[in-house]
């Protein structure tokens, strides 16, 4: 079968549905005022930008984003930042809040989110539905998945990533035969079977599903009439592998590193770590590859700036090392290392910021020490404050994660 061209993909009757309704409770307080896909990431991005960029780069250009909780900033981001397709050509990125057309509850699970939007599928009548999560950081070529789906004549193809056997307990694991057909699917089972020929690896589901529409609609409609958890991983997939052609697809990673990169930034520690994956000299996750650009809402801001070069140590010296520095930042006589600074951050003299994520418009006052911290937007940290050095003391005032990352909520006041 010949590979699909860009034009081939655009001509497919394919729509993407991005599930962007999760509450993201384990990312609290970053999700106190925003949906998880709208949480800032990597300086200038929001988490959902990675999935949407994958779509655009794969020529998937009919995209519905299913929003739900606290969707206002996500909605704004998509309308303002992703108004890049031409509805006149049948291409779009549209957000859909819950319509309560066939139920009075909010989405009960991933399958219920699709069931509640069957009206949209009926209006569009696609042949294929690509179900994506708005919560994941990865670079995936969905075109390769489409090719695999057609080659296997599958009803459902599930994108998977090989993970060390010890991590099977964290994921839905696909048990496959030598033809990649899924013969069993085990949700978060520490003793799930390994990949044939690779006794140390399991095949973890990435929550990326390519369905033939009729199979999808049939199955979510049946599931809706049961009292299951209405979840693809827990209910739909384990059931339909026995009756349908369900295949695993080892995803085509466009990150070009020896180990495939895919992260569900579901917890504060995972969020902090995947931001740190960006700052290394040879970053695990590469934002700078022009072959697979990650785009976001354009941000108007002056260039980032460092100020002061007094004799050092002792004097004021604006210094930023191994860090991401977004537009509008001013490092004014402070020291920043291994950190991610979002737009408009200010680091005042003699302040030290290390291994931290500082979000838009936050000011780190003179002489502050900030280590292994996440400071949300619009915080004015007064002069001389220490964050993340004494995590025991921090626990009285902030959220501190299991791995000792201190999190300061948005617009926290220090008076």
């Amino acid at each position, binding site marked *: 079968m010949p590979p699909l061209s860009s034009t081939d993909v655009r001509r497919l009757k394919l729509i993407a549905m991005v599930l962007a309704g999760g509450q993201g409770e384990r990312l609290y307080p970053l999700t106190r005022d925003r949906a998880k896909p709208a949480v800032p990431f990597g300086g200038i991005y929001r988490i959902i930008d990675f999935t949407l960029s994958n779509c655009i780069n794969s020529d998937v250009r009919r995209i519905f984003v299913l929003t739900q909780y606290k969707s206002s900033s996500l909605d704004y981001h998509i309308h303002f930042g992703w108004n890049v397709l031409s509805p006149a050509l049948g291409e779009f990125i549209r957000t859909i809040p819950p319509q309560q057309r066939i139920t*009075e*509850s909010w989405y009960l699970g991933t399958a219920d989110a699709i069931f509640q939007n069957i009206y949209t599928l*009926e209006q569009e009548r696609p042949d294929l539905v690509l179900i994506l999560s708005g919560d994941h950081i990865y670079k995936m070529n969905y075109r390769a998945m489409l090719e695999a789906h057609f080659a296997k004549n599958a009803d459902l193809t599930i994108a998977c990533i090989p993970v060390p056997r010890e991590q099977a307990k964290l994921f839905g694991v696909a048990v496959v035969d030598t033809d990649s057909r899924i013969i069993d699917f085990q949700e978060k089972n520490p003793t799930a079977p390994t990949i044939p020929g690779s006794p140390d690896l399991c095949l973890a589901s990435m929550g990326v599903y390519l369905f033939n529409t009729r199979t999808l609609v049939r199955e979510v409609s049946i599931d809706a009439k049961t009292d299951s958890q209405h979840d693809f991983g827990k209910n739909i997939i384990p059931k339909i592998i026995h009756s349908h052609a369900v295949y695993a697809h080892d995803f085509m990673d466009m990150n070009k590193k020896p180990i495939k990169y895919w992260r569900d930034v579901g917890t504060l520690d995972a969020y902090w770590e995947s931001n740190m994956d960006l700052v290394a000299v040879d970053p695990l996750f590469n934002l700078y590859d022009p072959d697979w650009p990650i785009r976001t809402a354009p941000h108007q801001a002056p260039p980032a700036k460092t100020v002061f070069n007094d004799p050092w140590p002792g004097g004021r010296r604006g210094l930023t090392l191994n860090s991401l520095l977004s537009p509008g930042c001013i490092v004014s006589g402070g020291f920043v290392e291994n950190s991610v600074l979002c737009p408009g951050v200010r680091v005042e003299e003699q302040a030290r910021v290390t291994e931290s994520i500082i979000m838009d418009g936050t000011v780190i006052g003179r002489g502050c020490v900030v280590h292994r911290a996440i400071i949300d937007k619009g915080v004015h940290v007064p002069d001389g404050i220490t964050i993340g050095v004494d995590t025991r003391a921090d626990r009285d005032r902030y959220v501190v994660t299991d791995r000792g990352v201190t999190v300061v909520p948005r617009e926290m006041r220090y008076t």
Partner: protein
Amino acid sequence: MATILIVEDDDHQQLLYQEVLQEEGYNVIVARSGKEALELAQRVTPDLVVLDIAMPGMDGIETLGRLLSKNNQLPIILHTAYATYKDNFMTWSADAYVVKSSDLTELKKEIERVLAKRGEGKK
């Protein structure tokens, strides 16, 4: 005795289905519109609903969704003169789709089948 709610706007058909299903031994109640069906289903909790699609006001597809939003396990058979709705995804959450005919054998068979399935689920 199973209670069947018939939702049908046409008087003659209403009478026909009511008589035939009563002969079959079912307890039958009738609603003339989607709106009435929603009210009745709340009050009576039928064991099965036979639902017309083309009705003035709220049509059967909308009624189907609203009935399921109140009780997602309520068995519903769509019963319509048109075969075209069968391919409409919105109708796929019904338990059966029967095209109206003067011969009611299929309707009776489907009612029996859906009720039996439901009975199994309860065991």
